[in-house]
């Protein structure tokens, strides 16, 4: 089981983030828990692409043909990390606006948003 530790940690991070969203009393806390939720996918993706004894896929120092880890998965994660922070900025702008209109940051008290 220890050999598959990254997979279990990915599931644990996912459930932690979800627990934070369910239990949060402050809207900014909800957004940060969403960040934790998203970071679980980074651990899972990297764990899939890892190869024991593999080098980093940058061939500036090593000769092409040496065993490396998977570069495709890293390319997926590179843009993901940067785009995540911009989406968090958008979510926080919505939180700021909800605070200005509603006067509170507790999700349970924002009653004017109910249909």
């Amino acid at each position, binding site marked *: 089981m220890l050999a598959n530790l990254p997979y279990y940690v990915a599931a644990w991070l996912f459930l932690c983030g979800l627990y934070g969203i369910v239990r949060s009393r402050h809207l900014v806390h909800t957004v940060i828990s969403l960040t934790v939720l998203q970071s679980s996918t980074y651990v899972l993706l990297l764990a899939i692409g890892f190869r024991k004894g593999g080098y980093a896929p940058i061939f*500036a120092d090593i000769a092409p043909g040496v065993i*490396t880890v998977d570069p495709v998965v890293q390319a997926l994660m*590179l843009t993901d990390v940067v785009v995540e922070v911009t989406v968090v900025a958008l979510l926080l702008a919505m939180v*700021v606006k909800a605070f200005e209109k509603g006067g509170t940051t507790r999700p349970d008290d924002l009653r004017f948003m109910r249909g």
Partner: protein
Amino acid sequence: MTEKRRLLLFFAGAIGVASVYCAGIRNMPPFGHYRGPYGDVIARLAVYERHTTDTVNAITYDYRGFDTLGEEFILFSAVTGVMLLLRPETQERRRRETEGENPESFRDRAALSETVQVFTTGMFGFAVLFGIYIGTHGQLTPGGGFQGGVIIAAAPMLLYVAENTDAFRRILSHPLMEFFEALGAAGYAVVGLVALAFSAPFLTNVLPLGKTGDVFSSGTIAVISACVGVEVGAGFMLVTYEYLREILSREKNTED
């Protein structure tokens, strides 16, 4: 639904998810035994096909360049969303003009020592230079447009920390910032359209590939990386300015 009931429902669901997930992990290849063919194929061929030494950036800007175009536009629309949400509304502008300013909270700070101010302001130049270096060497070493753009955009915060809010506000509220963000986003699409002029599919690498290891190598990868760097940097600076707009205009009024 009360909080206790919500938590109970969550725990019931979490136990279900965890058990199904653990049953699924048992059939996966063990950690460290990567099986898939694509990673090995690209790692072996990217250096020869694209004359680049950084295969991750070759995948991001060339082999899967269309996905990165989509992600860049996610960034662009998120920045547009922030600017739309946080723009000053007409009620606020009218109220801010009528009522007097009383910003005492900004005056009772301890003054920053001059050594710290001078060093931090000096570091701003180094930070921008480092960001440009990382952004333009994406095809050779780890780096590229996204990272370089974020470093450049985080550099003006050094000015804010050094209490040089005048320069900070003048940099962030420059009218050309929106132009540069749009230029970066459109530049990526234009580079893709240039390939159509060479009668090749959209976003093909049609520029001369150069020698591996040079800065001017690997064709469109360097150009796309520069466009993305400009767009990410300008986008982050716009978002920072939108959040701090009121606080900065108040500090401007106190210093007069």
